[in-house]
């Protein structure tokens, strides 16, 4: 036994839990585990919804739980529980051990105690008192929905705010012992416009991490103008004609194309499954030489940034593609174990009930040398995708994205707005066709759903030109 004096029989946030955590890890190692990881969280969340000129929902929530992961060779057992007592955590370890059918043998892994404590939460404990109050949030949301009411064609106005405060403790048998507090705030504006048989919608989302004052600084007037103009531009738009054509994708959320089409395929979970076409392509050309792509968790305030990942590793800046050459995969602990790609500080999970997996953080295509006009001027007949909706990638790399706000390009100029466009393709085929990158890189927040739940991410890019892509329409 590493610690003879067990001071607490339950995890207590804000206190030292080292002895209890060591006892639990030692228990797992003693039962024959190769590796034991404990992830414990305490959450304090709040969301507010404004519709038209009223607050229609205020929903606080709080909770706590633990996720315990045991590795034996390359397989792992994961147990989650709301019971943070010593008994509950021990029971979870036992359950994971039993699931893996581990037999105790004489050769045990060595656990030298939690000797690598890092506290990332020190200056963050005041955040809960610095975030805006429900009253403040309500006032600003109502001001924003009021700003959306610019003419009588706007029939629906919504503003939503969400704040997630997550306190985590991560401890594992390699000595990792980490505390952190994460704060994410996001605000979204949505409108629906209608005139006779015509309908359009507009939406924008803004988000930050670790900046309690950010919502107060948010320029809701500018955001409302942007959403309003988008809905008005699209109200009388015709459906786009389907076909193969060159497209220019706008910066910010246009980066969702890289996130979905390529980023997911560079996660080691995809190598494990054998579902990425980029496996065994390291140091080979997989994209046009104009493309350099990065995934990092360190940009201050960005929605996908973290001080430490959910496996206790500080995030690194990973250059995934350099001048079209594949340089790195996004890896977590299981990814390193099963594929050999070194961890990148990308082990992420929605909450304690998910095992961490390799996930993107802030992922973007680096800026190039061209102006937005250069890109558009280079196209005689194509599509400008000013605002992208959601997208997804299939099991064999095929992707699709909805275009929320699009314009035809004719003879190098933007012309009519068009709706109903979907971009369809396969990463392997599209990446070499990104022939021009603009000089106006910007990031945008989003939520990414995958194997370990929904996590906060940033997508981004400058304006980019894709020489040819299938545009779905009518």
């Amino acid at each position, binding site marked *: 036994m590493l610690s003879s004096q067990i001071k607490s029989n339950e995890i207590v946030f804000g206190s030292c839990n080292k002895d209890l955590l060591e006892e639990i890890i030692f228990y797992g190692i003693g039962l024959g585990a190769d590796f034991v990881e404990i992830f414990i969280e305490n959450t304090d969340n709040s969301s*507010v919804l404004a519709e038209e000129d*009223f*607050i*229609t*929902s*205020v*929903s*606080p*929530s*709080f*909770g*706590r*739980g633990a996720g315990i992961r045991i590795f034996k060779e*390359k*397989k*792992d*057992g*994961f*147990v*989650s*529980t*709301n*019971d943070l007592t010593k008994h509950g955590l021990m029971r979870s370890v036992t359950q*994971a051990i*039993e*699931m893996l059918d581990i037999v105790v043998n004489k050769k045990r892994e060595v656990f030298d105690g939690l000797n690598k404590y890092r506290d990332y939460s020190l200056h963050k404990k005041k955040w809960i008192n610095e975030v805006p109050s429900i009253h403040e949030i309500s006032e600003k949301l109502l001001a924003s929905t009021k700003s959306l009411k610019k003419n009588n064609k706007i*029939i*629906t106005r919504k503003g939503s705010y969400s704040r997630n405060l997550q306190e985590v403790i991560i401890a594992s048998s390699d000595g990792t012992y980490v505390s952190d507090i994460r704060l994410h705030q996001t605000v979204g504006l949505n409108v*629906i416009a209608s005139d006779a048989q015509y*309908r*359009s*919608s507009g939406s924008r989302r803004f988000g930050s991490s670790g900046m309690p004052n950010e919502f107060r600084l948010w320029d809701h007037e500018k955001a409302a103008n942007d959403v309003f103009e988008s809905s008005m531009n699209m109200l009388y738009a015709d459906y786009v004609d*389907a*076909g193969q054509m060159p497209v220019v994708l706008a910066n910010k959320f246009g980066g969702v194309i890289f996130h979905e089409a390529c980023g997911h395929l560079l996660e080691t979970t995809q190598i*494990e*499954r*054998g*579902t990425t076409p980029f496996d065994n392509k390291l140091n080979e050309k997989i994209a046009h030489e104009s493309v350099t792509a990065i995934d990092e968790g360190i940009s201050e305030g960005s929605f996908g940034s973290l001080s430490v990942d959910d496996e206790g590793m500080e995030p690194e800046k990973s250059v995934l593609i350099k001048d079209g050459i594949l340089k790195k995969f996004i890896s977590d602990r299981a990814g390193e174990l099963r594929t050999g790609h070194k961890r990148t500080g990308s082990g992420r999970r929605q909450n304690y*009930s998910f*095992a961490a997996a390799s996930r993107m953080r802030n992922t973007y295509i680096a800026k190039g040398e061209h102006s937005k006009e250069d890109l558009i001027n280079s196209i005689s007949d194509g599509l400008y995708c000013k605002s992208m*909706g*959601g*997208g*997804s990638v299939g*099991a*064999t790399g095929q992707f*699709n994205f*909805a275009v929320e706000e699009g314009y035809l390009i004719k003879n190098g100029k933007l012309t009519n707005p068009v*709706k*109903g*466009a*979907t971009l*369809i*393709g*396969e990463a392997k085929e599209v990446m070499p066709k990104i022939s021009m990158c603009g000089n106006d890189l910007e990031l945008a927040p989003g939520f990414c759903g995958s194997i370990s739940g929904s996590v906060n991410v940033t997508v981004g890019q400058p304006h980019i030109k894709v020489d040819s892509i*299938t*545009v*779905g*329409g*009518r």
Partner: protein
Amino acid sequence: MNSKEITTQISEAADSLNLKKWDYGASFSNDYSVQVDKGEAKQLKASQKQILTIRVWNKSNLVGITTTSDISQSGIKKALNQANIASDFGNKNERTEFSPLAKDPIEVKDSKKRNPVGIKKLLTLLREAEVKLLESHESIKSVPYNGLSESFYERVYANSNGAFRSYSKSQAALYLYARAEEKNKKPRSSGSVKLGYGVDDIDIESCIKDASNKTISHLNYSSIKTDKYLICFSPESFLTIINAFSSMFNARSILDGVSLSNKNSIGEKLSTEALNIYDDGLHEKNISSSPFDGEGTPTKRLCLINKGRLENFIHSESTARIFKTIPTGHAGLGSKVSVSPDWIVVEKSGETSDLKTSLDHSIFEGEFVYIEELNAIHAGVRASQGSFSLPFDGWLYKNGKKISVESATVAGDIKYLLKNIVNIESSQEVTTSGISPHIWVDELSITGDA
């Protein structure tokens, strides 16, 4: 704490805070799942979860809410406190009340609750299924997405007016998603999902067979010319479309201005007279059925479209009050109560004179596109505008041959789609999200090759 003890705890804590009116919903679950990779266990999971949502009404009868996973005495008290604070911001324009049906009798059926088989049996069964699927065809190289799980859960609703309901169930699920590869061709994937009350109720062999047949059937593929086509929707894909546009039937969506329907839409002709659509959460084939909704209202069968005309909307307590009707058993439990369908049943009415009954996917020899499965619903559906543009898996039937369609989307408008239904086949199929026959629709746009 069990559900009776929680009710007592909430009642006592509410009294101490002078909160006279409250209700709560809770769920408790134990889940077990396994994944395998080439015969080896990959990840084995177990989880124990508890979630409690409490609503309170303050002295001004405004509602506040809080959700927590901390169902300790202190957690319950904190939740009530937070809900009380939140009630200061309660919606004055749309006040929520208890469902008037929260104490009505509920239809009690045999829950068919099964006992756990345990993680080792789950693992053994999934390993065997993976091996059989890999052996079913030489082109199937892996089963990258697979899982076998069993869940045991209890749900509770209670309020300060004496309503108390609970039920407990079990459910198991198997999914197998195979990947096939042939030389000089793109990899192709497809799969199958089966549900049961317990693992022993799942037809594993049929899941293997479906996954194998579907995957192999996509090996010979070709691009499709962009054009308008006669479409046959599989039961699963038609239910996907109906669920994606269920805001048409949803009173909450109508009040929020995000539905294609309005308060006066009841009676509107949406489709051929041959079409009936019901929501039937208690259907015997619905393994996830719940006898009551988030507000304690009993679940029931409700006709949504009758002979092509909009017949009913689905309601919560508050939307029903606004529409001057009764709740239909489709509510969630929230500060703003959500409304959603349970289990859609599509069937052919007796009025079939305008159908082209020669259109039967098993014998029709003309050209048509069969849509097996629609993908990326979250990205390609604009429910408030009625439009969709969705990638799909399917086949082009032409000249008596069937070839898998490579990377294409189907686009259209839900009202156009419903109005252009040209046949509803007789035989219904049970899927994981409802029941439907094959549905034929004329002239929908498909984008493939330029």
